[in-house]
Structure formats: structure tokens, C-alpha cells
């Protein structure tokens, strides 16, 4: 099964015993609430309930590990769905979310997240691995101000070319 394969591949990136939940996470309302109020999640791989969340694997990695994680998915022939950001302003962090999925019937949706500081939002680009990440990264760059290091053409895509604002940041006021 591709799910296990991917998971073991991704787990190899975390050599020290991380608090990895192996069982399928039980999601009840209280749990979610607890999660929301808790500290930001530690890096690691979590298996999610597909029928609740709509994806199977949720891996949070540090920006340095990002390329490694994406390379694992690339080797396993995942295709890129989208890249987006989430502004966690309370925690003073920005999250970049990478969605991957598969073309074959061995369905496995993988989400890779990486958290960065709001003050210095820089992550490496994955355009070297996935050429299709180009536009997604440009879009995330203009909406969140996240810099993708090494991106070949990081200019605004959807916004006007002289746009110097980042509309999806929570402290953006039109």
C-alpha cells in the first residue's frame, strides 16, 4: 500500500522519537478544540481520518526538510495539487501547505506543511522538483508575502504587477 510506503518514507526524516501518532486519530469535537488551543503542533507525520478531513497523511516538516519530503513524494509519483498558505497570526507564524495526490487508484492524499516565522517568511522553492509549483508559489508569494528561495520568476501572478500588499494576511486592511 502506498499509504504505508509514503508514511515510512516520511517518517525516516524524523530520526529521534517524535510524538508520532500511529493509530488513526480519533477526532471528536473536544479533541479538535484541544488541538486548537494547544501550542503549535510539533513536526511529524500524522495519519488522518480520510472521511473526516479528506486526506490521509499530514506531515509537518521544517523548511529545511521540505525539499527532502517533496522528493520522497516525487519518487513515489505523486502529483501536485496545490500550494497555499495559512496565516496563523496569533502564533506569529505562517504556514505553507502543499497538497499532493495520486493518479492511480491507490488513493492517498498527502499534505505537507511547514511553518515559518511571520517576520522572515522564507521557504525553499520546489520548482526544481515540480515545475508545476511555479504558479502556485507565485500566488502564495503575492497573497502572503512568503518568499520562495530559488524561484526563477517570483513576480505577482494574479495581482497587478506593482502590488506591494499581501491580501490574505490577517492584518491586511483593504
Amino acid at each position, binding site marked *: 500500500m502506498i499509504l504505508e510506503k509514503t508514511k515510512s518514507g516520511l517518517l525516516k526524516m524524523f530520526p529521534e522519537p517524535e510524538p508520532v501518532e500511529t493509530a488513526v486519530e480519533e477526532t471528536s469535537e473536544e479533541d479538535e478544540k484541544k488541538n486548537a488551543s494547544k501550542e503549535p503542533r510539533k513536526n511529524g507525520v500524522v495519519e488522518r481520518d480520510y472521511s473526516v478531513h479528506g486526506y490521509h497523511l499530514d506531515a509537518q516538516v521544517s523548511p529545511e526538510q521540505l525539499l527532502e519530503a517533496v522528493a520522497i513524494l516525487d519518487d513515489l509519483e505523486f502529483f501536485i495539487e496545490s500550494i497555499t498558505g495559512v496565516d496563523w497570526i496569533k502564533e506569529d507564524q505562517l504556514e505553507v501547505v502543499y497538497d499532493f495526490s495520486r493518479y492511480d487508484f491507490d488513493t492517498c492524499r498527502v499534505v505537507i506543511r511547514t511553518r515559518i516565522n511571520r517576520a522572515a517568511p522564507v521557504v525553499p522553492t520546489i520548482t526544481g522538483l515540480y*515545475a508545476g509549483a511555479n504558479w502556485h508559489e507565485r500566488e502564495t508569494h503575492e497573497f502572503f508575502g512568503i518568499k520562495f528561495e530559488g524561484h526563477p520568476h517570483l513576480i505577482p501572478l494574479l495581482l497587478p504587477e506593482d502590488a506591494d500588499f499581501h491580501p490574505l494576511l490577517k492584518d491586511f486592511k483593504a
Partner: protein
Amino acid sequence: MSSPIQLQPDETFILNVGPQHPATHGVLRVKMEMNGEYIVDAETVIGYIHRMHEKMGEVKTYPQYLMNLSRMDYLGAMGYSHGHVLVVEKAAGIEVPERAEYIRAIMVELNRVASHLFWFGAFVMDLGGFSPLMYALQDREYILDMMEAVTGSRLTYCYFRFGGLYNDIDDDFISAARRFIPRMRKSLKKYHKLVTGNIIFHKRLEGIAPLTKEMCRKYGASSAVARGSGINFDVRKNEPYSVYPEFDFDVPVYHECDSLARYNVRMEEMEQSLRIIEQGLDKLPDGPIMPKKKPKLIKPPAGDYYQAVETARGSFGIRLVSDGTKTPYRLKLRSPTYSNMHLFDEACRGMMIMDALAFMGSLDLVIPEIDR
């Protein structure tokens, strides 16, 4: 046709195709570096009708955002609404009555046929044949009339609600849909005779713009773009949602990888959609169209939720990050044509401009859907 010519650096010129150009079907701009008729390099410029739907999602409550989704893609609006209601229902745990699910599937498939019909017409018009567009619009008009009688609008339906539907279909609709299916099958035969069999049409599309499987994967292409390249990927089959597992239908896959394959996939998809509609009408259960108990105020528990659906243009994904309030914390719309269009820059290198524009037509672009 790839260019056999070795270029000198100053032998090219920039051709600005768009934002207002007959072949771009909207305000899309492609900066093409040309060598005579050959494209050396292309850069697609999008965003001319960017409306920041994602930000709107963060400031509007869940029900208020319903109508935004149908504004994304004006040809296949139902599919996008479907994705939205599904993800919110999943997040908030709202049960949907079976009848509502069936009606949704019928509507989405009807809308898919309408969208593909328009694409068919516009595509042939891109290639210079005008009459097929008019025939396609006649059939599409039939669908629109049918759907207008139920939903009250012709293009930007706001028909799906969290938990169900805005209103029920009536017998008029059912009989009209039943009449429509044989009519559409007959029309499809006509289109195949008039267009698919035509030698000029064949010559223009055969072998044009081959997209490899690997390229589709790197760009995340879906819909006919992927299926024309031999990838058996259809969200309705790969990750069944709604009542699609109940239906018996095939996913057309062609291995030629060229524009003709993409055309054939879409033409066959229409037939498959008709099959789904037929089965849906047969199996349509009685019952309510809205759940008995439905939360007054929709507040999904905190967490993030993803839902992919197969719209007329491909795999549309919607990521909802909720913080437990009545507005979403973040709403990401993954539009299929965005990824499909992204292919264009790389794939059109070395093509002639006619072929490149035929290729662009085969991608089935709806610009508001790319720009969101």
C-alpha cells in the same frame, strides 16, 4: 510540429496574444516569443479578472459564500458549488438526504454536458468551423432552460445548500430530462459525423501538443488533459463522493496524448454523463431535500478539511481551515484549469501558432476560474 530551425538571438519577435484576442476566450494574455510562425517561448499572464474569492471566503459567513462558487466557473457552476457544500457538510457533520444527493448528481452531470457542449462549439470555432458552435448552443440551451425552470437562473446557479437543495425538482424537469437524453445522443452522433470524422479536423489535431504522463504529473493536470495522456484519473472514481459509487459509468482514457485524444475524451464524457443522468432519474428516491435537523448557524469544528470533486474542467479541490467560528479561517480554492493552463508555457514551445491556439482550445479554459 517542432521547429527544426536553429535560431539566432535576434531573429525572434514578441507577439502579444491577448488580453483581448479571439482565441483566448476571455481576458488571458500570452506573451509569445516567435520565430516566424514558430513559438520559441511563451509566458502566460493571468489575473486580469482576479476577484480574490479566497479573501471573500474569509469575511463572509458560510451561507453567504455559497453564491461565490458559481461565479468561479460560469460554464460548469454546479460542480464548484458541489465541492463547496460537500466540504462544509463534511466539516460541520451535516447529513444530506439521499434524494438531495441524487438531484445534485443529476444537476452536476447536466451542467457538465452543457459545459462540454460549449467547449465543443468554442473549440471547433477556434479551429475555424463556426456552425458546430451554433448546433452545440442549441442543445445547451435545452439544458439551460431545464435548469432555469428548477434553479431560477441560467448560469450562476445558487442551487445547493448545506444539507440539501434550494428547491425540489418537479415532474416537468424529469420528463424534460428524459426527453433530452435521446435528443442529445442523436446530436452527439451528428457532431461525430460533422466534426470528428472530418479530415481537416483530424489533420489539425492529430499529434498536436503531446503531453507526457510525467508532465501531467509535474503540473498536476486533471480532467481530459490527464485522461487524454493515458492517465486514468477521475475524482468520481478515484475518490468516490456523494452518490457516484451508485452509478455505473466509465472513465474514457486515451493514450495518444495529443489534442485529438483530449477532444475524444470530452466527447465520450458527455455520453457517460448522459448515462449517469439516466441512472439518476431511474434511481431517484422520494423524500425530503433538506435534512430534518440542521444547525441554524454553521460553525464547523476547528481543523482543516479537504474535498476534491470532478468538475467539468477537472479536479477541483477546496481546502477549508476552520477555527470554529461562523466564517472560515482560510478557504483555498484549487482550480483545475489553473494547473492545466500552467502546462501551456512549457508545452507550446516549438509549436506553430495555429497549433498552439488549437492546443489552448483543447485545454478547455474558463478564465474566471483560473483567476478566481
